């Protein structure tokens, strides 16, 4: 006999994740005609880059957006990468099943996180155009597989509509999606800016982009070095809470609290664990499973009283100051760049994060430059531009609610010689963490965790000090040049007119010019 609960549970299962997505597309970034297209490009490109890196090849991504049947809101979006390709049996899962990725719940920093990613893009295309996604892939074994697939919304799985194989020497994956109800624009929110930002934060990535009007843009890679792969890592005591500790205690193999603490937590030796237990008044030999809430609380506060090494950064994958500078230099061609990489910090549950800040001044930096690539479309903007990243992935939307934005606004820019309304300045901020606290599943803004906010602010100010040095040098240099220019312009006039007044021959101005173009000696008596 079935219980009520059985019935309910059955009901519950019938609402698949895909179904949920379909009803909540907006939450995942599919809101608005421009944003939807950008989100699709984001999912495709993110997938491609992660796949290439995982395989250890320099990512080469091709993105094309083509108009279908000359219809204004109907596009075919194409991604192609040079990564490992996908074995046939996984294709329908990768593109047709949500939350099926290999990334969830690993304390590892990657671009994608929830695994909704590319299957969400497939879902969106299917909903708007009714057409299947076409996936062409090869692992480089001489065989190329092409499949048309759709998502079975009820079952949350991929349904292969058509499949064929051919011979071919090629490796990689190409995905073609047909979407409707979208608009292509070169605005801050459009795919072009998304790819530009991606190129800045990922100087090892080579991106080719073809716009609907056929315009081809190549963002060349600025380095040949593939970033190191991140590693999974344990929690660090600095940010851990009682609840986390008790959860870990339930799964540990350690038999005593001391061995539990020293094996499950990062940077905790047996000696440190010992010290902490004494401070917390917890018996050293107590079984982890028998820890009480109070004892856990004591341990958490005891950890704050002992000296520990900073959390390991092995799981963190910062871009590095050199590559931040490379990226900014390559794409923005600025007069000045600087980059700051802060040491890792932790927030909340012991989760390390790391803030990197870059600044580019002059050249194509700042909002005005963005306007130039917009070809007069969109608003006329000038001044400072903030480009936000989480694990190198551009954050384009929801700027107003993001911790990075708060940090930027919290700074008195005039102190650094910057007028945010006019400065040709691009401020780059990348937050690297295994678990970035996004404000929503759309992953476009970072929650204002106090540690992250403070750390970001500190990093921006550190970079701003470098910028200030540059700006002041620039002002001084300009003053010197202006000075020389002013005298070169007016001293000859003085000589000529004075000679005319006196009826004398014009004197040679050169010795005076040489002497004066560096001296200031005017006084009011």
């Amino acid at each position, binding site marked *: 006999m079935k219980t009520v609960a059985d019935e309910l549970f059955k009901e519950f299962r019938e609402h698949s994740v895909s179904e949920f997505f379909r009803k909540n597309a907006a939450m995942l970034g599919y809101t608005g005609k421009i944003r939807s297209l950008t989100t699709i490009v984001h999912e495709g490109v993110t997938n491609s880059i992660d796949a290439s890196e995982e395989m250890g090849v320099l990512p080469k991504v091709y993105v094309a957006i083509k108009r279908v049947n000359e219809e204004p809101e109907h596009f075919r979006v194409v991604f192609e990468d040079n990564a490992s390709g996908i074995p046939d049996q996984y294709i329908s899962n990768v593109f047709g099943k949500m939350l099926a990725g290999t990334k969830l719940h690993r304390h590892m920093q990657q671009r994608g996180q929830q695994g909704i990613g590319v299957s969400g893009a497939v879902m969106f295309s299917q909903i708007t155009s009714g057409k299947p996604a076409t996936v062409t892939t090869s692992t480089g074994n001489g065989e190329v597989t092409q499949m048309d697939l759709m998502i079975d919304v009820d079952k949350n799985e991929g349904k292969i509509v058509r499949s064929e194989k051919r011979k071919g020497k090629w490796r990689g994956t190409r995905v073609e999606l047909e979407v409707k109800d979208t608009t292509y624009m070169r605005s801050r929110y459009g795919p072009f800016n998304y790819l530009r930002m991606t190129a800045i934060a990922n100087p090892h990535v080579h991106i080719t982009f073809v716009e609907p009007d056929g315009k081809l843009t190549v963002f060349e890679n600025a380095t040949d070095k593939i970033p190191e792969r991140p590693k999974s890592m344990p929690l660090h005591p600095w940010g851990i809470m009682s609840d986390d500790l008790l959860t870990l205690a339930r799964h540990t193999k350690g038999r005593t609290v001391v061995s539990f603490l020293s094996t499950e937590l990062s940077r905790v030796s047996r000696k440190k664990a010992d010290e902490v237990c004494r401070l917390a008044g917890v018996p050293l030999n107590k079984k982890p499973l028998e820890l009480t809430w109070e004892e856990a609380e004591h341990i958490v506060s005891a950890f704050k009283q002992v000296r520990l090494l900073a959390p390991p950064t092995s799981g963190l994958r910062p871009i590095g100051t050199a590559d931040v500078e490379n990226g900014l230099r390559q794409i923005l061609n600025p007069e000045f760049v600087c980059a700051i990489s802060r040491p890792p910090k932790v927030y909340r549950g012991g989760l390390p994060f790391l803030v990197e800040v870059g600044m580019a001044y002059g050249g194509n930096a700042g909002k005005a430059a963005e306007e130039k690539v917009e070809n007069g479309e969109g608003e006329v903007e000038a001044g400072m531009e903030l480009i936000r990243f989480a694990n190198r992935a551009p954050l384009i939307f929801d700027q107003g609610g993001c911790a990075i934005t708060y940090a930027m606004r919290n700074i008195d820019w005039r102190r650094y010689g910057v007028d945010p309304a006019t400065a040709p300045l691009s401020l780059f901020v990348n937050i690297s963490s295994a678990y970035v606290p996004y404000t929503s599943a759309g992953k476009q803004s970072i929650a204002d965790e106090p540690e992250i906010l403070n750390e970001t602010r500190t990093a921006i100010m550190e970079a701003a000090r470098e910028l200030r040095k540059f700006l002041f040098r620039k002002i001084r240099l300009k003053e010197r040049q202006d000075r020389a220019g002013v005298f070169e312009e007016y001293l000859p006039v003085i000589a000529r007119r004075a000679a005319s007044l006196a009826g004398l021959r014009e004197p040679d101005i050169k010795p005076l010019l040489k002497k004066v173009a560096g001296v200031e000696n*005017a006084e009011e008596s």
Partner: protein
Amino acid sequence: MPKKVKKERAHGGRALGKLAGMGKEIVEDIEKAQPPKLKIPSRSTSNIIYDEAHRYFVLGPRYGVRSAASMKQVKKFAQLLCTADFAKELIENGKFATLREMYYTAEGWDTGPFHGQGESDLMVEDLEATFGLKREDLGLVPEEDGAAVYGRLVVKEGDAVIDATKAGRGGYTIPPTIDDVEFLKCKAKRVIAIETMGMYHRFVQEQAWKKFDALVVGLKGQAARATRRFLRRANEELGLPVYLFTDGDPFGFHIGMVVISGSAKLAYINHELAVPDAKYIGVTASDIVNYKLPTDKLRELDIARLKQLQKDPRYNTEFWQSEIKKMLELGKKAEQQAFAKYGLAYVVKEYLPAKLKEVEGQEFLGKR
């Protein structure tokens, strides 16, 4: 366009000498690779001083140094020399240009145009102050003509000989270039300067110029530079006493006082404009009482102005202090035309003779 004047200018030679001297010093400095400097008397209010002995405002001893080695000043330095060179050309060619014309001419200078006429006018003031010369001496003239003069005066203006009794009812118009006008003949014995043109025409109609052997000058309110220069020359060259007749209110008083003592703004050039011996004859507060003139109440503005005048060093005489005090007590003011109460001719037949008798101790009534 600049007007051609054939006659050699009175101060032309002096101006050319000073301009050449400035040029020479600068050329020599440049040859020695020394930054040229100009000392320009400061015209800030703190450097404007009332000279008790001369009875007009003069510039104090402070001056500013404009250095060609200063980034902030080198452009102004160059502009000043361009202005000077422009003046030199004007003088040499016997031409005049208005300040406005000079402002436009500067468009073609190698220092570029001025940002406004205010800037170019300052250059002219700098030169005036530096050399102690009037702008007219530098070939530069203001836009507006001076006022009118009627009486037995014959002047030579270029080739034209003009009799100021035969220049129409309006009289002879004093040109901005008054310094180039030669006084050929003068039978007048005094000058009567009148604030309003209404009263001026009354004086002409009633033949006051004839009855009082006077040059009647209409000031048209606050006297223009050319008018003041004319009065100064009449006083200095023709030896005529100058009398001032204005409305009986603080503004009338001051129109008279500016002729006598000069203005603070033109302190650097008052020695060419002021007529310290000119006498103010009316309308005084005493006149209002003695002649029972129709009056208006003093406005707040008038009272405030009167109180200002009380403290002004130029009014620091027994006569002025008592008249100002009396007017404040009366709380009344009167216009020149108020004498019409007693008939149009009254002011010429009764008031003026009485006043002239007061200042000159002569009887005028019998003269025709």
